[in-house]
Structure formats: structure tokens, C-alpha cells
């Protein structure tokens, strides 16, 4: 028994050529016996009548007549759906045709998603403008990475709440590093796929761990940066909790490493509680007093995975003896600076800084300290209006020269971060500056070189260039710091 659908659709117009094609396609569909899709002119209506259809009375030439007869209901529904699809206005994507007009790029994130499809939205516009683009991403069902910093915290919370409602992830703001689907975003490294998934509230901390894992021959499933404030009491770990769940659900992830500065206590408890419920083991690398350093946490993760812990690469210079004087750290990476301060303060006591471990140790970054001191050149106060020191080293090079002129300086500790997004050849600038510094007062220079063999800057070449001017180069920031501390005999 045949079934049929006949309707006259008001206000739906398509030209006759289009309609002939739609009719022909409908007639060819499986199970369809007859079909007329045409404007309801007298001619077309009489044709439909001749084919045994009964068009609705009153249908006019401005109405679209859709008449389909099929063997059964399923074939009819399928054919009707195809007709509707063929008649629907073509969505934006199809507009790739259309003559010689130069294509203008989409002007908003929403427009880009509408024309090019969903994806991971990467936002690096100035922080005060980032909210609008992030809302576009979430409204369109896309996860979003906010590289921008200086986003007001209430905006961060609002975005993360919205993401939670929609089952999406907000990486950042101030998310410097992520690896998704093998693609490194922001400051990142080319790493092999592997069993470790990182949740990182710290960009350079994650980079250190990624590079150590690469040196150990262990790859990474994903790195989800959540932003430096995510584990604060205000933000409450909203993204970290979602990222933990996502990685636990990821079949490629055998172990999860959470990298952060020490979180707010309540947030830490929530994280550990969630971690305890997951099928995937979770290790914590929370840079701070009484916590394992990044290298130690990486080693523990390797052991959990049953992998060998290698000797971390180092490129020592000629033998240097201990020095009397002060340790000066000049860092591009905030977490690397933190880690170095934690280690050094246990050995040397007071370490002053623009990001001090203890508020009493605060140091104006432009002042010269009379104690051991470490400066984070990536801190907001020193990056306003200029690129990050991982890209623009000029401020750090100036300070290096100034420290070398200070007779109290015994040891200078530096980090050099390679990878995507970083300076294309940092050693080319740094090596001559180190050579000049050593020529002046012969301080001991120690470098943490954060990079992998696959990084575009060529890790070995960078290491040798620094080694050649007398710097002691380490792949582990913790080892570099301990080496520096070992060579301080006492303050002057």
C-alpha cells in the first residue's frame, strides 16, 4: 500500500530549474513511486493531478507544491527530508563560489566558526578584549584556549561556569602551553604521542615536565593548561577538575600529572578527592616548600609507569670552584623561578624577588638586591607593552650585564626556554652576553635549558653555544639550581 505526502508551502520559492532537479532527485530515491516538487502554478497543479496527487485547494503559484508518493512511510520520510535539505538555504560554507570578490577574513570568532566549522579556539588578543571571543567559542560549542593574560577574574569564572554548563573546556586565561591532538599551542614543544596527560596551571612548569619526559623517551597524550589562577580559591579549580575528567576519559592517557604552584587548600582537597575516584593514576607536581620539585615529580611519574629514569642531560663547562658572593637568578619562566627559589632558599636562606616566596622578601625588580635574588621577567609588571622574555630577551640581557658589573655577584642562574612560539635562536643573543659578563668579573653562569631534540631551535646547538662561552647547562632546572647552590660557599 503506497503512502503519500502532499503539501503547499507558502512563501517558499525556488526557481524552476532548481525544482526540476529536486524533483528528479526525489523520484530517483529508494522506494519513491512519484514526486512533484514545483511552484503550484495551474500547469504544475494539473500535472500533479494527472499523476494522481490531490493538491490542497487554494494553492497558488506563490506556493511550493511538494507531492511525494512512496512504497512505505520510511521511504517517504527519507525522500521528504532530502527534498527539505535540497530546498534549504545553503549555509555559509557553500558560499565559497561567487565570483572574483576578494574574500575578507572573518572578523569575529563566531563568524570564523560559522564559516569554517568548529575547532579549538585559540585567543591571544589583549586580555581586556578576550571575553567576547571566548563567549563566541562557547556559544558555538567550541573549547577555548585563552593565551591572553590580564583578564579580570570574574570574567574567568563566568566563562568557566558557562563551559561547565555546556560540557566544554576553558584553557586559561594566561594559558601559555597546551598540546592537543599532537599540536602544540602557545609556547610548546613537538613531543611524541605517549601515555602521560598533563593538567597544568603553570606554563613553564609544564614545559619543563614535557621536556624531561621527552628526554626519558616518554610521550604525552595531551597537555591541558588551565591558567595560573585556576587553582585559586576564587576560581576553585573549575578547569582543572574538568581537564582531569577529560584526561581520565581519554584512552590514550595512562597517567595524569597535575602541575601547579601550591593551590588554595580547599581546591587542593577537591582535586585530590576527584583524583582518588579516577581510573587513571594522578601524580601531583605542586612547586612549593615541602613538595617535590618538577624533576622529582617527573621521575616519580616515570617509576609509576614502570619506565627507566635516565640521567638528565647536562653540558658542563670547565671545572669551576666555589664562589663567595650572591646568587642572581634571571628567569623568563615564572614557575621555573619559583622552583629555583624554593630550592635555593632551603640552602641559602633569604632569596628576594619580584615574585617572592615570602612577602617579606619582596624586591623591586629594578632594584639591585643586597641578598640572593631572583627576578621573573615574565611577570606582568615587566611585560606591559613588550613581548614575553621568551621572545624578547633585551631586558634580561641588560640585567645580565648589570649583574656582572656588581662585584657581589658570584653566580648567575638563567633559564632558556625553547620550542614553538619562543625566540628562534636565544643562544645567539645570550652567548655573547654571557661571554661579556664572564670577561668582566668571571661569575659562574648556570643555565636551565628547557627544550626537546625536536624543537625548531636545535637543542644541542643551543646547549653547545652556551657551553662554549663557559655556561654550565642543564636540562633540569632543579639540578641547575642545586649546582648553583653547591658553588656558593657563603655570602660576602
Amino acid at each position, binding site marked *: 500500500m503506497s503512502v503519500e505526502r502532499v503539501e503547499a508551502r*507558502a*512563501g*517558499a*520559492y*525556488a*526557481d524552476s530549474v*532548481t525544482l526540476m532537479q529536486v524533483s528528479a532527485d526525489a523520484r530517483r530515491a529508494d522506494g519513491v513511486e512519484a514526486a512533484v516538487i514545483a511552484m503550484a502554478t495551474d500547469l504544475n497543479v494539473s500535472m500533479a493531478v494527472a499523476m494522481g496527487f490531490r493538491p490542497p485547494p487554494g494553492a*497558488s503559484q*506563490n*506556493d511550493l507544491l511538494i507531492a511525494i508518493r512512496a512504497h512505505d512511510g520510511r521511504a517517504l520520510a527519507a525522500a521528504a527530508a532530502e527534498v527539505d535539505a535540497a530546498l*534549504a*538555504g*545553503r*549555509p*555559509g560554507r*557553500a558560499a565559497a563560489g*561567487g*565570483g572574483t*570578490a576578494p574574500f*575578507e*577574513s*572573518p*572578523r*569575529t*570568532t563566531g*563568524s*570564523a566558526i*560559522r564559516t*569554517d566549522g*568548529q*575547532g*579549538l579556539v*585559540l585567543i*591571544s588578543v589583549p586580555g581586556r*578584549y578576550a571575553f*567576547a*571571543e571566548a*563567549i563566541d*567559542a562557547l*556559544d558555538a560549542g*567550541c*573549547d577555548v584556549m585563552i*593565551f*591572553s593574560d590580564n583578564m579580570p577574574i570574574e*570574567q574567568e569564572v563566568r566563562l568557566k561556569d558557562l563551559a561547565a554548563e555546556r560540557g*566544554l573546556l576553558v584553557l586559561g586565561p594566561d594559558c601559555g602551553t597546551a598540546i*592537543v*591532538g*599532537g*599540536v*602544540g*599551542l*602557545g609556547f610548546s614543544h613537538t613531543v611524541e604521542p605517549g601515555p602521560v596527560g598533563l593538567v597544568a596551571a603553570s606554563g613553564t612548569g609544564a614545559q619543563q615536565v614535557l621536556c624531561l619526559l621527552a628526554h626519558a623517551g616518554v610521550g604525552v597524550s*595531551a597537555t591541558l593548561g588551565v591558567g595560573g589562577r585556576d587553582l585559586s580559591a576564587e576560581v576553585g579549580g573549575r578547569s582543572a577538575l574538568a581537564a582531569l*575528567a*577529560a584526561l581520565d*576519559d*581519554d584512552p*590514550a592517557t595512562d597517567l595524569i600529572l597535575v602541575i601547579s604552584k601550591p593551590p588554595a587548600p580547599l581546591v587542593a582537597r577537591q582535586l585530590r578527592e576527584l583524583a582518588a575516584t579516577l581510573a587513571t593514576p594522578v601524580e601531583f607536581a605542586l612547586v612549593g616548600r615541602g613538595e617535590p620539585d618538577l624533576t622529582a615529580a617527573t621521575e616519580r611519574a616515570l617509576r609509576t609507569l614502570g619506565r627507566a629514569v635516565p640521567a638528565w642531560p647536562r653540558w658542563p663547562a670547565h671545572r669551576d670552584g666555589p664562589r663567595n658572593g650572591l646568587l642572581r637568578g634571571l628567569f623568563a619562566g615564572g614557575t621555573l623561578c619559583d622552583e629555583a627559589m624554593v630550592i635555593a632558599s632551603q640552602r641559602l636562606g633569604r632569596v628576594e624577588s619580584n615574585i617572592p616566596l615570602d612577602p617579606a622578601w619582596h624586591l623591586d625588580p629594578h632594584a639591585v638586591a643586597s641578598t640572593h635574588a631572583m627576578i621573573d621577567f615574565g611577570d606582568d609588571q615587566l611585560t606591559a607593552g613588550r613581548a614575553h622574555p621568551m621572545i624578547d630577551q633585551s631586558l634580561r640581557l641588560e640585567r645580565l650585564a648589570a649583574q656582572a658589573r656588581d662585584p657581589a655577584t658570584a653566580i648567575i642562574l638563567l633559564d632558556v626556554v625553547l620550542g614553538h*612560539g619562543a625566540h628562534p635562536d636565544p643562544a645567539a643573543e645570550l652567548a655573547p652576553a654571557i661571554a661579556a659578563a664572564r670577561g668582566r668579573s668571571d661569575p659562574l653562569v648556570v643555565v636551565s635549558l628547557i627544550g626537546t631534540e625536536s624543537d625548531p631551535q636545535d637543542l644541542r646547538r643551543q646547549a653547545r653555544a652556551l657551553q662554549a662561552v663557559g655556561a654550565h647547562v642543564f636540562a633540569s632546572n632543579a639540578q641547575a639550581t642545586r649546582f648553583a647552590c653547591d658553588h656558593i660557599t657563603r655570602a660576602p
Partner: protein
Amino acid sequence: MTDLLRREPHVISAGLELLAGAAEGQAARVTRVDWKPPMPGTESDLVRVLADRRRAAANALAIRRMLAARAQLVDLLPARDALGLRPGEFLHAGPPTSWERAAGPLRGALMGAAVFEGLAADPQAAAAVAERGGFALDPCHAHHAVGPMAGVISPSMWLFVLEDPASGRRAYCSLNEGLGKVLRYGAYSPEVIDRLRWMASVLGPLLQAAVRAGGPVDVTAILAQMVQMGDEAHNRNRTGTLMLLRDVLPSLVATSFPASDVSRTVSFIGGNDHFFLNLAMPACKLALDAARDVRGSTMVVAMARNGTDFGIQVAGTGDQWFTAPALTPRGLFLGDYGPADANPDIGDSAITETAGLGGFAMAAAPAIVRLVGGSVADALAATRRMYEITLAEHPLFQVPALDFRGTPAGIDVTLVARTGILPQINTGMAGKVAGTGQVGAGLVTPPAEVFPAALRALAEAAAAPAEPA
């Protein structure tokens, strides 16, 4: 839960080229956003409005209502009957204004209309009455009506009555007089008044009889078809006009009116390529009125000009007008007229752009590309640019040259503020001296300030405690 870890990497990058390039260097598919800072001073209002939890659903509702509306021409009536206008009351285009602030074309149209109504012996006498405050003025938009150019409606003028069959909502518009020396462009010479009298005594009643006899005319259907036949329904209405004639002719010739009246009516309509504009406009008005008063919606529901000020209204802010001085169009001029002769932007006809037609459908009207720079490519680019500031693509208004993509419809105040892209309006130009008439046609945009002003009001509404529904 996010499926971020299960997808092929496609990165949409807004911001640093360094980061986009680095992702591309790792063989990821990258889409770049050509991001620029928003309009000055809008940052914090944008955040408040975009964070408004009502926004997404409110805009979806406003769009759904706009796109669902259908317009049928169901009747013609004198304005006194349709709108209850009384002698001495006049409607005009654009946001509210007064005789003191009225531009030349609006003054000219009011003077002519007063003579037509028999309120003054001649235009100068009409002006004197107006000076004494003898006329009551109100915007068409406040009465479910729209009028092109000066947009003056007086009680004796006949109006098209359009109705949305689903809701019963109605919208009204005057009958189009043709081009050149016409009232809507501010002309008031005797030929203008004579034509108005003929329109009120013959054209209106005859069309009324034809529509009542022949049944409603599906204006939305004609709009959908004309967009595929070279009209954008603002500056080009040639196909729409002919399709209207096609639809009403059978009942027009069957009326009991003298053959000479029928003949003159048919040649009047057929000889006026813009006749259908006055049906396109109220059809758009019906659709946008359906989208009004949706709390939290950032969609523009009216753009209108009175020759002095340009105003917009927004779905989320009720009847409030956001106004700034109107700009003067740039374009092509009739005869010896030049830019110095043109009055600032005037008319309710930007309701077509507000609904996704006119300048927004420029890509559908290659015949008038000279208005937008001369090439078809410019026309395509003009329409494409409007997708950046709109919420939807109109499923009925499909552009063949864009592979049948729907026209950009539903202007979003936040997108205008974010991109700085202003709506493109195709328009006629009136002479700035009262009595002149049309001097040209061209392009114009709203003054940019109206959008930050509307955004501010939306931000205040977003911050305010929820009112009872």
C-alpha cells in the same frame, strides 16, 4: 564532557599571528580571525551584555520570530480608517522630531500634505500653520507603519494593509508615487498634489476593490522570488512590481471601475519600478515588529531616519530610540544635482536592511552595482561583509550568486560594536531644500554612535535586577 581530545585539531586563532603560524607549522588546520579592537569605549558594556545569561536564548527567539513572520497584502484603507489619524495629525519617517528640527524634505512633504488635506491654501500657508505649532507629528514606527523618505502619512492618504496570517499582526505603508517630483522627496508643486488626489480617489479604491475581490497577495513570496531575479527590495523593485501586477491584474480588470481608470492604474504601477518598495517595507516591518520586546536580545528591530537624526531601536530595549545626526549618502546624482544638494539620510526604508534586504542583499542585484563601486565583486563583498554583523541567514531570501546562501539578517548590536562594521544602506537622496524632490541615489550607513549608545542601554538592562515578566 568536552570531546577536545577526540577531534582532529582545527585551530581557530584570534590574535597573534606567531601562534597561528606555529600551529600551522605543525600541520594543524588553522582558521584566522581578522580581529580588531572594538569601537572605542565599548569594552566593559560588551562584557556586561555578552555575559547576560538571557542573551543567547533571547536572540534566538527574536530571530525565530522575525524569520517566521509572513506578510500578505489583505486590504487598502485611508489612514484615517486604518490608523485613526485625525485632521492636523501627520506621521513621518524616522525617530521623533518637531517642525523646528525637521529637515527640508520633511518640511516640504508636510507642507504638501497639509495642502492635500485642505488644511492650507498653499505650501507657504501650510508652513505658517506649522510654525504656529498647528500640526501634530509622530513617527510612523510608533503606529505599526513605515514610510519611505519623508514618510509623511496624512489622514486622507491610502495605505497598504499587510497582515501576518499566523499572528494577525498588521503593518501599514503609503502608496508609492513614483520618482522625481514627489511628496516623499519633499516636493509640493501642484503636480505632486494632483497626483496624491488621484491616488486617493482612484488608485487606492481601485486596488482595494481588486485585493478584496482577488484575495490576499503573498508579499513574502514575491520578496523571496524577486531576490532571485535581481531585486534587493530597496533600490531595485522592478521584478517585485511586475509580480504584484501579475497577481492583481485579473481582479483589477474585473472591477466595476471605468476602463480608463484601470488603464491609468496599470500604467502607473507598471511605469514605477519602485511601486513594490511600499510593500517590501511593511513586510519587513511586520517581521521586525514580531521580534520586538524580547528582554536580553541585542537584535536591531528598526533603523530609521527623519532627515535630521538617524535612530535605531533594539529588541531588548523596547521603544527607546538611539539617535545621532544622520549622515549624507554618497552616490549618483540626477541631472545637474551634486553632493551639495543632498539632504542627510531620510526615510523608514532602512527597515529593508534591518530585515536582511536592501544593501544586505546587494549581491542579489547586479543591475545596480554602480551604487557600490561598480563591479559585481563589490556587490558580493558588500553582502558578505554584512554576515559579520548579523545573527542569521534568511532562509527565504536566497542569493543565487552566493550559491543560494540566505541573506544576512538580524543586525546584532554587539557584533557592530565588536567589528566596527556598520550596516550598509542603499537609499535614495532627497534635495535638502524643501520642494526640490529627488536628487540621486546612493549608499549610506548609520552614524556609528548609535550602536555604542544602544549597547550602553543593553548593558544597563543586563545589570538591572530582573523585572517581573
